[in-house]
């Protein structure tokens, strides 16, 4: 990626996260799980960037490492021009006013002993010095935005349905008016009819509050709907990235092609032609040499087994990491 461009809000460069594997009495480090392997991308203001991939591909770890909820092993993350990896804990804490996280499971991410008022006023108390009146006004404004009423302030999380709980988590993340959020699978714990409600709410809020977002999901239909650009991850590496519609219409990487074809179609007469991948995702503690996908790829050649392909531009603003693309 080239130097700091004016129109990027978040620039991730060669982000790396390794988890040590410890064994034995002395807890010696015997190896590393390569959770995220040199991932680079950038997010523009008001852009929704989606990270998709199967479980264990490192998409959630990437999201957490950007906010330093997990300390990255290497690489840099620039947010509004500041290198986040150089900040102290305290400076990072202050930065999080502007960068927030929405978690997957609203059933476990809300403290059951805090009512809605406490849940929503806490981030404001931590980050701002507001008078009680201002505090009240901010919380009530936010409640209105997520479609709830002030008389629900006294209630506790268990008194709400899953969809309402997720609304509260979203409100809690957005109440400090951040300019950037990471949403980690925000709808996958919800029923289909509720998913659509939450997605609509997130799109409305994103427009209204001019948010930039990293949207992490394994649901390819949801990603296509909500995001402007997308990054497809496999075994810790970005395989393909570009504008969402472009990637979905002309998937270049064999993995993206298989992933997109595996989505069940909703037409019983026109069953989708699946590319069924054989085998399983390799162990990230012992990743294969060369291209991470070569063990399951139908187009694998000798070159793929030896050298890892770099992301290269195959169409305007469409990058793929494959030796066979764009030739």
């Amino acid at each position, binding site marked *: 990626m080239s130097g700091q461009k004016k129109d990027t809000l978040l620039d991730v460069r060669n982000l790396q996260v390794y988890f040590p594997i410890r064994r034995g009495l002395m807890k010696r480090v015997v190896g590393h799980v390569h959770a995220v392997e040199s991932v680079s991308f950038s997010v523009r203001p008001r852009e929704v960037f989606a990270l998709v991939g199967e479980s264990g591909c490192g998409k959630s770890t990437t999201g957490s490492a950007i906010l330093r909820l997990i300390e990255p092993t290497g690489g840099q993350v620039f947010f509004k021009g500041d290198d986040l990896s150089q900040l102290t804990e305290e400076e990072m804490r202050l930065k999080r006013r502007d960068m927030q996280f929405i978690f997957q499971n609203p059933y476990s991410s809300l403290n059951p002993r805090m009512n809605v008022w406490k849940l929503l006023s806490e981030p404001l108390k931590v980050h701002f010095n507001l008078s009680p009146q201002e505090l009240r006004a901010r919380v009530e404004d936010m409640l209105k935005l997520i479609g709830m009423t002030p008389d629900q302030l006294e209630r506790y999380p268990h008194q709400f349905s899953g969809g309402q709980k997720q609304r509260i988590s979203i409100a809690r993340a957005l109440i400090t008016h951040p300019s950037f959020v990471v949403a980690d699978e925000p709808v996958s714990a919800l029923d289909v*009819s509720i998913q659509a409600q939450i997605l609509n709410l997130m799109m409305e809020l994103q427009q209204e509050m001019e948010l930039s977002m990293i949207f992490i999901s394994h649901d390819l239909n949801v990603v*296509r*709907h909500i995001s402007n650009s997308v990054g497809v991850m496999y075994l810790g590496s970005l395989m393909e990235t570009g504008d969402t519609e472009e990637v979905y219409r002309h998937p270049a990487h064999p993995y993206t092609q298989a992933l997109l074809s595996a989505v*069940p179609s909703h037409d*019983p007469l026109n069953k989708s032609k699946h590319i069924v991948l054989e085998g399983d995702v390799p162990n990230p503690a012992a990743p294969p040499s060369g291209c991470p996908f070569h063990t399951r790829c139908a187009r694998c050649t000798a070159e793929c087994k030896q050298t890892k392909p770099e992301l290269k531009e195959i169409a305007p603003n469409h990058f793929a990491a494959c030796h066979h693309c764009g030739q």
Partner: protein
Amino acid sequence: MENLLEIRNLKITTLRGKNTVRLLDKVDLNVKKKCSFGVVGESGCGKSITANAILGLLPYPLRVSEGSILYDSKAGEKELLSLSKKEMREVRGQEISMIFQEPMTSLDPIFTVEMQMFEALSFHHPHMSRSEMRERSLEMLRRVNIPRPEQTLSSYAHQLSGGQLQRIMIAIALINDPRLLLADEPTTALDVTIQAQILKLMNSLKEQNDTSIIMITHDLGVIAETCEEVAVFYAGQIVEQANVVELFKNTAHPYTLGLLKAVTSLGGETRKLYTIPGIVPPGGQWSQGCRFADRCEKCMERCRKEMPALTEAAPGHLCRCFLHSGEVEA
């Protein structure tokens, strides 16, 4: 008996304090022989407890309060609800078997795959020798496309991936050639590429074995890919039932229509997603009238007072809605 399984007027209740709460209300289902039957609905609509009731696996305080489940077994017709515990054990795993949502938790972590496969075999075939059991287990593992079956037999659950575990669950479920397989969200916990593998496998096994499948899922895509006949559950009732093509092409019930719209509008032209307002009413808080009335776009006055019956909207297409009951004025 013409059908393999006939559920009549099935009611399931639970206790909440001293009150009895209805969870499933007058469900009728017919599963034909060699058919794959889909049951679709959101969480809490009663689809999983229906499957558990078939095998007598309802946990206390849930119980079947009314109804009958007739099953055409190898040894003649059986009323599953009146079987003794011992007789039920004969049916389970031999005649009807089940695979569960979470393959990671449904295998026992402290026994090898081999021991768990042998258990399923030796329970129903006490005189089978170890070498016969081993042969049969290996054959089943090969049928579900497990690479290196010998090595897999001596593995423990934590050494295998989710896709492999679900294959093993399917192998165990089919090891005694059951005539009916209940699959409760078999691919929900798996990734899409693994889901595609498992669905392909289940389709081919159905063809080879003449096994009927009841596929329980919340994913209409999975239904469209695998099933022939579909029942849509909502708040403890069947609201629509038809052949899969008929259901997707001539959807009648507003709830099914809403579900389909909600998923197919994803990635469509419009940015705003179609939504069904409100939430599924929880068990015991059902209204007198149509249970979908509060969320329905086409709700009429009558819907709030009277419960519509499940009537034929077209030949073979059942729907629980006044709009399609044929008796409504235009």
